[in-house]
């Protein structure tokens, strides 16, 4: 592959590339307009974690997150992408600070939206306090940016899903798009099993994990606004759609979100399994949902659940 090809990826390439399989850098390169990405604090700056070497653990020059700006269908965007293959995409001090900085810049400029490509298991245990602080700072920065009029869109479809503090941050975003492979939750399957027992949640039962935390279920209960097929191009199109359709942010949005969540709890609080929720939602042949191909699922989801544009 020549340098020119590397710099000018085609739509075909984005269509052929699995978002799940791609590295964070490949996702960013193929998601944005060709050649438009400019990185802040790139790996050449070697802003590595100050903590990992204390544990004799390998560092990564970008600390597992890429931040920068570029263009999406000609319009400027800020973008952050976590690398799920480095320490499970976990938030550490530097990793978190890069995202906070990006969100604060967006707040200052007011008009440029932010895309966050989550791929994270949560806080990096080796820098727990710094990581937890980073989560809190990011959540605040997301809300402040949104208050200033910035749309913050989360895209979730990586290997590590979006867990722990990542799940909390995702909950603060203006809108989310998720693929089947993407999982969104706070406590991970193993954590639940450890604390509540295998009868409560069998973390080895992957079908259970996916129908509880996976993309299809999140879309069907309104936890995510759009469902994307597992290609970078599908996520690009989802981001464009969400940027266009997502409404502003204010106290009315929060009130609407609060009542949406209360309503959800009331309707489904007694359900034992995701399939019970789908049945209650009127999904025909609910048991077949996990096996549905993406296009058929999107059709079904659009029928079953209109996106609540006023909430979030």
């Amino acid at each position, binding site marked *: 592959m020549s340098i020119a090809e590397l710099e000018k990826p085609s739509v075909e390439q984005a269509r052929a590339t699995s978002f799940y*399989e791609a590295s964070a850098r490949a996702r960013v390169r193929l998601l944005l307009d060709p050649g438009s990405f400019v990185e802040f604090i790139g790996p050449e700056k070697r802003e590595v974690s100050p903590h990992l070497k204390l544990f004799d653990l390998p560092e990564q020059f970008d600390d597992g997150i890429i931040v920068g700006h570029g263009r999406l269908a000609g319009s400027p965007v800020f973008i952050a992408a976590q690398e799920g293959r480095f320490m499970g995409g976990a938030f550490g001090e530097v990793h978190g600070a890069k995202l906070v900085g990006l969100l604060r810049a967006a707040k200052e400029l007011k008009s440029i939206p932010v895309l966050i490509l989550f791929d994270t298991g949560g806080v990096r245990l080796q820098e727990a306090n710094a990581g937890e602080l980073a989560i809190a700072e990011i959540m605040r920065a997301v809300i402040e940016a949104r208050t200033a009029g910035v749309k913050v869109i989360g895209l979730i479809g990586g290997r590590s899903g979006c867990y722990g503090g990542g799940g909390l941050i995702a909950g603060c975003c203006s809108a989310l798009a998720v693929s089947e492979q993407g999982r969104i939750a706070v406590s991970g399957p193993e954590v639940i099993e450890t604390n509540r027992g295998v009868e409560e949640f069998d973390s080895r039962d992957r079908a259970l994990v996916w129908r509880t935390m996976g993309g299809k279920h999140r879309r069907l209960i309104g936890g995510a606004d759009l469902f994307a097929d597992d290609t970078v191009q599908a996520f690009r199109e989802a981001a464009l759609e969400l940027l266009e359709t997502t409404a502003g942010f204010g106290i009315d949005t929060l009130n609407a979100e609060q009542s949406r969540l209360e309503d959800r709890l009331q309707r489904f609080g007694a359900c034992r399994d995701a399939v019970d929720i789908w049945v209650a939602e009127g999904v025909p042949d609910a048991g077949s949902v996990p096996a549905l191909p993406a296009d058929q699922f999107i059709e079904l989801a659009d029928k079953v659940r209109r996106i609540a544009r006023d909430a979030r």
Partner: protein
Amino acid sequence: MLTSRNAEAAGRMATTWQHQREARDARLEAGTRLARGKIVEARDATRLMEAVIRPGDRVCLEGDNQKQADLLSRALLAVDLAKVKDLHMVQSGVVLPEHLDLFDRGVAKKLDYAYSGPQSSRIAQMLFGGKIELGAIHTYLELFARYFIDLTPQVALIAAVSADREGNLYTGPNTEDTPTVVEATAFKDGIVIAQVNEVVDKVPRVDIPADRVHFIVEADKPFFVEPLFTRDPAAITEGQILTAMLAIKGIYAPYSVRRLNHGIGFSTAAIELLLPTYAEKLGLKGKIASHFALNPHPALIPAIESGWVQQIHSFGSEVGMDDYIRARSDIYFTGPDGSLRSNRAFCQTAGLYACDMFIGSTLQIDLQGNSSTVTASRIAGFGGAPNMGADARGRRHPSEPWLQAGREADPDGSALLRRGRKLVVQIGETFGEKNVPLFVEKLDALALAEKLKLELAPVMIYGDDVTHIVTEEGVANLLMCRDANEREQAIRGVAGYTDVGRNRDRKMVQQLRERGVIRRPEDLGIDPLDADRSMLAARSIKDLVRWSGGLYAPPSQFRNW
């Protein structure tokens, strides 16, 4: 006087020659009191054990590497120690916790076995603690052979899918060890007790004829089967893909290996998934990998669907593959009912005598090429790899790969008298899981043997059987090494940045490379940067389901949808 004394002796002999049969009849009679016909209620299973098993008996509790007579193992564990104790367990798989609980409780005392995968850590502790008197750790064929010579069970506790009222058994696709165990027990006056998932009017096919089965216990739930041979393509790394490419281009192609066995592991799964893509591009279709002794690996589905594979005989089955196998009877061995018929003893024999190559992974390789999966705290046993990964000295039929390997090992010998060699390939990354080095100066198995005072260290594959080692650094051809020093340097030469690799004699490794004993990726025309997951024919379990046309039904723990 003389005549009457002779008659007396003859009479005495007539009774003593049938001692075992009389003992069996006595056991049968005691057991029959608990049965209606041959059928015993599950709640009476422990009483049945107490009726038919005597202290010190040799008992085969069917624990294979996949299916488990789990109800019978719980029943045996609950026996009254006044009636049953100090048993000598002779079983291929020590897999369930109950298998070891028997020794903790004193129900059993002595153990001869082959494989202990999931219990590898606890069995090590119990051996160290003296809780188990160890006979030996066997390969499958070895243990099966001893069932017929000096380890014949007095009682066999086996598992089947269904039985009719006569006692004919249908084992389902996981026949595994059952015919062998029953053969040895039933024809030497032993008692066979089968747990079945259901009693039916007519079994789908007869895997075990009724006259070899004495008691049937209907279980409340199906016997446990472990999906041991499913590897999720999503977990295959680029390093494993590179080693797979090296194996295909560096070994499969030059030797034209058509008849083979694959070990379990992600590197061999990667090979299976590269056949319809990478190997197809190399023009190898029809020339390699067409006949297998292999469990029904889901990872092989894309190669089968692409027309690569002609025939597979299996040791056991694999959870979720039943419908696929039924629909592909051209490939698999199936019964009149349509489902797979597996047989571990026959498939092991097939792998030993009729395959030209074994390729598999291991945990440790030493400087002589000996390998072992034993570590300081784990004794996983052997299972099938040593028979698959051994040169069969009794082999007499020629084949091109076998002859070619023989030529490389002994280029100056007489062609008509020269033995061929089976290709025995060890494949792995120089640093395995958790960055543990694959190459070591001394196997942990040796330290373990010293600690347990064993007469033999548990070596999985002996160095003199290994012909090739493949790592991401290249392929080492040990057939072409002429002495122990060359062998050691060839191994060091592909050991990467492990201590073993760093202590190589650079000059000698360079010479070995010039002779083609070591071949680097670039020597084979492989660019390591081409090792990309996009080359895999399937990158997820769901892709495998799609390839199978929806016939493969993966168990829940392998689904991410």
